[in-house]
């Protein structure tokens, strides 16, 4: 998904690190990684530990880290929007309008990444420390406990106690309902079709006017 951009920008001191949140482990991620023919590092996070450390609650979520290891854009949807919610749930077809919205979101995000790769700290898309802090969702006790419950669910599932695992996954979702990575991974462990099935759509519909992907605050790129 990011290969063309990486190839274009790798000479500018820019690297993509893709992290698969995948409790089923490397073999579950392998077909996708191989199909992407990526030359940047594609890593497998079997315990969602990167998601925890950065506060990523969904996919795809991007974080920008500068040459000194400082976060210059906190976790935010990486070039996608809620337009997928208008999908026809039988045919997976999207209206022309929704397709255009997704195309635009992706193009804007890629243009911003390109601007940052070229200009570094001078890019208007590299945020000030105050702005990064303002946009970051702070950890709290409920989220920390949700993560511990999710880890327990993952462990119990891995050692064959699927039924016991479910209660911990449910508790993780109750404590941190915005964490779609927990929810969808738990559905996926139960049955790979479930993460995109009727349970998923019911949960998305229950958001009502709320967001699945928070809108990205990003100025327009000058052509």
């Amino acid at each position, binding site marked *: 998904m990011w290969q063309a951009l990486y190839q274009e920008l790798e000479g500018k*001191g*820019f*690297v993509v*690190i*893709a*992290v*698969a*949140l*995948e409790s089923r482990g*490397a073999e579950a*991620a*392998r*077909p*996708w990684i191989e199909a992407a023919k990526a030359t940047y590092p*594609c890593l*497998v*996070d079997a*315990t969602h*530990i*990167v*998601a*925890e*450390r*950065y*506060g990523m609650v969904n*996919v*795809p*979520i*991007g*974080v*920008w*880290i*500068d*040459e*000194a*290891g*400082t*976060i210059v854009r906190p976790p935010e949807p990486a070039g996608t929007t809620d337009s997928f919610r208008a999908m026809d749930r039988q045919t997976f077809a999207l209206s022309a309008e929704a397709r255009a919205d997704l195309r635009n979101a992706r193009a804007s995000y890629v243009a911003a*990444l390109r601007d*940052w790769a070229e200009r*570094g700290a001078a890019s208007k898309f590299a945020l000030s*420390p105050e702005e990064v*802090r303002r946009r970051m969702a*702070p*950890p*709290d*006790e409920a989220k*920390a*406990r949700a*993560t*511990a*419950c999710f*880890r*327990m669910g993952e*462990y*119990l599932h891995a050692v064959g*106690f699927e039924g016991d695992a479910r209660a911990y996954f449910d508790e993780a979702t109750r404590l941190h309902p915005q964490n779609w*990575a927990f929810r969808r991974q738990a559905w*996926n462990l139960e049955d*790979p079709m479930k993460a995109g099935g009727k349970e998923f759509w019911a949960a998305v519909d229950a958001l009502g006017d709320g967001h699945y992907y928070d809108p990205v605050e990003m100025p327009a790129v000058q052509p």
Partner: protein
Amino acid sequence: MPQTLISGDRTTVLAGATSEGDALWVPVGDLEPASGWTLKPEGACRGEECVPIPRGQESLFVRPGLFNLAALAGYLGQPVVHDARRNAWVIGESAGRRAAGLDSLEAPDFTLPDLQGNLHSLHDYRGKKVFLVSWASW
């Protein structure tokens, strides 16, 4: 009964540990490999950090040859999840510590394998602009 402890990147089966209600008594020799903590005269220490055992509560934390890791976690505000049926414990990171780390804006380090099993750490890419992006098959 052996107890399984999941903490940070590590999952450890503690053959000599016992569970008693909310307490997880870990043989002192197993503490460091399982949790990173060691016992010193000044308290429980991990890296630069030393936590004095609260005065008057020593018996909640220490027994001869054993240390109650769950009590320490609770004292530090870390979430503790215990499944008594399967003898499993998760000790997570406290919200306060996570928040302090993020407030510094220093990107949290991590080490993960690629498909070939080669390990990559974020710090290997110091000096580059890193676009870190999550994805999933689900």
